């Protein structure tokens, strides 16, 4: 056949695969479990099957893909598809966070001042005569755990500043690891990759400590009005992403120990690295708009 064919000829189209269907069933099980729990039809353990299946899904599916990769079934075209796919997936994640940042800005710059009767909304004073509308706010009905409805915020220059340092550092280490991988310095790669996910887990631990403090001492909880809502939903979803990212880094690290990845071809590594940088950037946004300003 003509050489022009070669490229697409070898574009790897898997014959058939059970994982997509299994994955859909997994999602369905997971969601059903969540529904049962939230509606109080069943105790929380009804979430277990879903999560177990999810864990298995990742193991199976990635195992297949990694296997195919090691067999060298993926040519450059396939590699490019994976890269683009990952980029657009990250973009969708950005938009997901955008929704919550949007909520934060809207509440802070519009809703709360309006409730306090700012500008044309003066008549809201009829409903909430003694609401001052200063941020941070848990609303005119001062909703929160404390009897007097008061609460404190997490000072930016405490754990958050430390966490910022940690994540920034981890971004550096992962870049160094990447350099090492490209220049074939495997030991260096192993060390700095390990450092990266260790930093990641440290971050999560710190975040957990911060949450504990907020809940027990600051009177700051998910139910502490709009401030609590935006604070915990933003930092919470971010923390979740850090956790997932750190786990993925660990997997990559194990693959490195197994001698996977070449200086030229290491999409898996790069994908996770991109994801990690994304998580890092989101955090900067959080640090500035949630903690600092």
């Amino acid at each position: 056949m003509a050489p022009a064919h070669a490229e697409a000829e070898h574009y790897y189209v898997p014959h058939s695969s059970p994982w997509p269907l299994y994955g859909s069933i997994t999602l369905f099980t997971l969601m059903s479990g969540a529904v049962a729990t939230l509606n109080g039809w069943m105790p929380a353990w009804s979430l277990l099957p879903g999560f177990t299946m999810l864990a298995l899904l990742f193991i199976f599916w990635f195992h297949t893909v990694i296997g195919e990769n090691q067999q060298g079934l993926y040519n450059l075209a396939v590699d490019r598809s994976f890269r683009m796919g990952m980029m657009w997936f990250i973009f969708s994640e950005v938009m997901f966070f955008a929704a919550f940042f949007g909520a934060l800005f809207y509440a802070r710059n519009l809703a709360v001042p309006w409730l306090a009767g700012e500008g044309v909304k003066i008549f809201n004073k009829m409903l909430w005569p003694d609401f001052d509308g200063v941020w941070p706010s848990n609303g005119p009905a001062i909703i929160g755990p404390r009897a007097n409805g008061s609460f404190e915020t997490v000072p930016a220059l405490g754990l958050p500043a430390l966490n910022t340092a940690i994540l920034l550092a981890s971004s550096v280490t992962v870049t160094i690891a990447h350099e090492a991988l490209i220049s074939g310095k495997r030991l260096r790669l192993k060390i700095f990759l390990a450092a990266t996910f260790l930093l990641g887990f440290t971050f999560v631990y710190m975040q957990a400590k911060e949450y504990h403090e907020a809940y027990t001492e600051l009177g700051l909880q998910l139910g502490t009005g709009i401030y609590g809502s935006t604070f915990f939903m933003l930092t919470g979803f971010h923390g979740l992403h850090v956790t997932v990212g750190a786990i993925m880094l660990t997997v990559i690290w194990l693959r490195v120990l197994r001698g996977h990845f070449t200086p030229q071809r290491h999409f898996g590594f790069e994908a996770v690295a991109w994801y990690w940088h994304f998580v890092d950037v989101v955090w900067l946004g959080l640090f500035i708009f949630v903690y600092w300003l």
Partner: protein
Amino acid sequence: MAMFEASGTTHLQEHHEHHAGPATGIKRWLFATNHKDIGTMYLVFSLIMFFVGGAMAMVIRAELFSPGLQLVDPERFNQMTTNHALVMIFGAVMPAFVGLANWMIPLQIGAPDMALPRMNNFSFWILPFAFTLLLSTFFVPGGMAAGGWTMYPPLMLQTGDSFPMVIFAIHMMGASSIMGAINVIVTILNMRAPHMNLLKMPLFCWSWLITAYLLIAVMPVLAGGVTMLLTDHYFKTSFFNAAGGGDPVMFEHIFWFFGHPEVYIMILPAFGIISEILPTFSRKPLFGATSMIYAIASIAFLSFIVWGHHMFVDGMPLAAQMFYMMSTMLIAVPTGVKVFNWTATMWRGSLSFEPPMLFALAFLFMFTIGGFSGVMLALVPADFQYQNTYFVVAHFHYVLVPGAVFAIMAAVYYWIPKWTGHMYSMRLAKTHFWLSTIFVNLLFFPQHFLGLAGMPRRIPDYAVQFTDWNRVSSIGAFGFGLAQILFVIVIIQCIRGGKKASAEVWDGALPTGLEWTLPSPAPYHSFTTPPDVK
């Protein structure tokens, strides 16, 4: 579906290479990775959902046939309205377009398959489970969600046990759409045959490329919004609760930031389809193809800055009202360019009226009517009278049913011979067309009058002066509904057998594009050897 296997295997003998033919039996569909199989599943699923959503619409129209409550209690009626919309949008129209993308994009750009075949199957199989979750709410205590497809809080938060099921169903649909969109983008950007540069690419692919960007941009926002609903309901958050410093209207902003691009997600691929069909049956290249692409792009861009036009009556600042009015009206300009270019495509052409062309023409007229009412709605003061009346219902059904849905039917009639290798019964198809066209106008045109005369939407019962137009509309609805049974008959016949279709299918017309260089039915593995585009 037997002919797929046949062609697939014969094709295999021709090219002795590592691709397998279709797996046999149910496995072929459950574990599918072939873009044609997955496309077929999408289309079948979408047709089923069209009937489910339509059946709900029939309940609505039957209840509205005369004043007073005859069939369902108000709560059930609202449930029908809400789920009719959710099913039609997320279950019928969007999957139909994804199905067409799956079938046609690889064929049109000369690719062996979609770029990420497993993810492709994942994004399909999520849907049946998502809709199982959504439709099973019919049986739970408190019934289905009844807050309207717009799900505004606090009303939505009053939903019973079905509340989390709806939210999670939407999460799953969102995941499915995002993966589908990523697949389309990657396929188009990475899998084009050599020398098939972007400007040579068929407009259907172009419209889908841009639609896919819209999907990736707004679906996650919807996911975020409904997540906030969930936490407001179960975890004490105050996003939409004024007492806690939130604002119910904030949800409307989040929803419509998704919602408006969403409506263009449902029309841009339709634009692409029309731009494929009109030239073929006008025997004349598409007029101003390049500006058509720019038009789609600018519509997509504008769709991000007009969402406020759904919220004029919620009391927004003056400046915002002005801005949203202007930006919304602006969309008429690029859309106009498309309509005019389509007209120019027919001008000095040589038109013949096969079923795809008939549906395309009907689209042209009736979508434009829907667009006109859209522009009227954009005028803020007038919208104070129109908003939440049947005038709005008339507007969006004109753009959605004789718009999006007719385009989908046109596409099926255009490409199904390529899929099955058989010609369908022209007589039946044309009957289907004329019945649909007559009844769809009977169904939705009087709703303009109802709205202007002051009939609010989302009501199960109405003041007696609205009786007559409602009767007309309901009769139109039943007629249109029954007419769709013909559609199914045509399709089934065409799959079962019929006159052999040639590779060009529309001989004598001017079908352009790579898909026509393949035999009909298209071999199981299209373009395992990439065609060279001159």
